[in-house]
């Protein structure tokens, strides 16, 4: 009895029509105006999205209103000054750029190497588990503690002084747990079936890692590293702790030269009483935001290209 009935339901009179999928407007609970639990949940989620967006807009708006006029070529290419109208961010900009390059040079090989070891070579066991848990923990340690560690280890024990190198080493330390974690995630996206395909062609583990696993996970690793660097460029506390200068009238010229960085310059200006410096701080924030936007766009672009290629 039930069978012919069932076929009758499925077999619609109009053969071209999509069967079994009712049109959206026909759903009984979809009538506008009624508050269903799902609608309430949807509204709460929307609110959760809008709130941080709004805060970000206010921040950007305020910085734009305060600093847009100050944002000239001269501002980017001048040294700090006692007079807010003449002050610029050249040393801070150069310091931040050098810092990022050095940090990346230190954090990428160590972080990616550690991730490759943990993911591809380490045998799962208590020790590996212990290391994994601690890397996750380290990623959550407040950055000022890294600053204190950098001060004791790099500045004092290793006698690097309050130099660019000490700053980069401290930031690299701060980034390592994050770089390791994102790199491991990227390595894990390479499916076991692809690795096995490589083994089945008579490849050994090293060839499999080099020819298949790394090329497939590289964009993911790069994306993670760029996002980590975008975070590092805004880090202030550890740099202040290790003693980055707040007034620098020169561009760093060696690994050992003293330095300042954009967030420190901003912090310095904002804590001064004169209103002119507050305008400078707002302009500095705009520059910092623009740099982060570029970093994040590159990361998103890379990820999109990567996804398309694997699709």
């Amino acid at each position, binding site marked *: 009895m039930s069978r012919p009935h069932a076929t009758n339901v499925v077999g619609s009179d109009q053969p071209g029509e999509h069967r079994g999928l009712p049109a959206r407007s026909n759903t009984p609970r979809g009538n506008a105006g009624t508050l269903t639990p799902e609608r309430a949940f949807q509204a709460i989620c929307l609110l959760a999205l809008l709130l941080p967006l709004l805060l970000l807009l206010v921040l950007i708006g305020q910085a734009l209103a305060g600093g847009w006029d100050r944002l000239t070529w001269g501002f980017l290419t001048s040294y700090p000054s006692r007079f807010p109208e003449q002050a610029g961010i050249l040393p801070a900009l150069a310091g931040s750029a050098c810092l990022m390059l050095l940090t990346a040079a230190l954090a990428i090989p160590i972080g990616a190497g550690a991730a490759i070891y943990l993911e591809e070579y380490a045998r799962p066991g208590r020790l590996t588990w212990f290391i994994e848990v601690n890397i996750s923990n380290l990623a959550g340690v407040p950055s000022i503690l890294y600053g204190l560690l950098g001060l004791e280890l790099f500045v004092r024990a290793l006698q690097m002084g309050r130099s660019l190198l000490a700053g980069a080493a401290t930031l690299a330390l701060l980034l390592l747990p994050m770089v390791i974690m994102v790199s491991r995630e990227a390595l894990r996206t390479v499916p076991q079936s692809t690795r096995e*395909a490589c083994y089945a062609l008579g490849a050994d583990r090293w060839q499999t890692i080099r*020819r298949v696993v790394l090329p497939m996970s590289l964009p993911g690793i790069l994306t993670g590293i760029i996002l980590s660097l975008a975070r590092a460029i805004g880090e202030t506390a550890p740099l202040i702790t290790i003693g980055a200068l707040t007034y620098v009238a020169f561009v760093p010229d060696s690994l050992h030269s003293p330095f300042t960085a954009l967030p420190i310059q901003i912090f310095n200006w904002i804590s001064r009483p004169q209103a002119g410096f507050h305008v400078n701080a707002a302009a500095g924030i705009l520059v910092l935001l623009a740099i982060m936007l570029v970093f994040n766009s590159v990361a998103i672009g890379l990820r999109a290209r990567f996804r398309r290629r694997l699709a």
Partner: protein
Amino acid sequence: MSMQSQEPQPSTRSPHRAGEGPPAQANSFGGNAANVPVSKMGVENLCAWFGDTEVLKDITLPVAERRSTAVIGPSGCGKSTFIRCLNRMHEVVRGARVAGRVFLDGQDIYAEGINPVRLRQRVGMVFQKPNPFPTMSIRENVLAGLRLQKVRIRYEDEVVEQALGQAALWEEVKDVLDRSGGNLSGGQQQRLCIARALALEPEVLLMDEPCSALDPIATSKIEDLIAELSDRYTIVIVTHNMQQASRVADYTAFLYLGRLIEYGTTEAIFQNPSCKETEDYITGRFG
């Protein structure tokens, strides 16, 4: 569940040469005397484990040269594990173990001093899910195995065309060789994987349910291909599809719960099975 009388007895003298063994072994492939194939591989008392779970129990089986052998059985019977033992892919998985012997041209591939990497160059494999290398072009996928082994390829174009031709894919992709292999359809990807395996000119080709992820049209293309390739290559194909086994295989082995229940010519297994379990399975009473 013991070995059937037509099964070859484990023989330490020459487990791999059907024609030279005792009478029971001469019969092992069930063909007429003039056309008895040579055994390319021989499996003896093979047991395999995942951790503490024994998934293969004392399997003894010949693999005929330049013929196709199907391994059938319900899900979880150990078919895939069995085929992965033939090129030592089983041990790639953590916690996996193997005991027993597997001969390739008379040489135990589990003997000490045998490099599994070298072995896999002789025993190629095609997997359940098509797995071309997504970062490589179609052309590079085909050449991947040769590149990995640092073989100097003098006539790259010829190698690519020949392998893709054998895999019945050349006509479809000859104009897009530099596009990514990941852009092909599922059936094309699987044929690309077959081409990738064939480019190495393996002596044995293992296929682990090569059609399970494909639609009927792609499946029939691959089945035609297997039938064609079995003239030149020794093929072992795992399948849960009995019709497929009867269509493409010269010999069929039926595995159930990790044991070999029955082995014989495909004809004998499907028309005149000597075990009740085999009969029940091929007539669809379970599985």
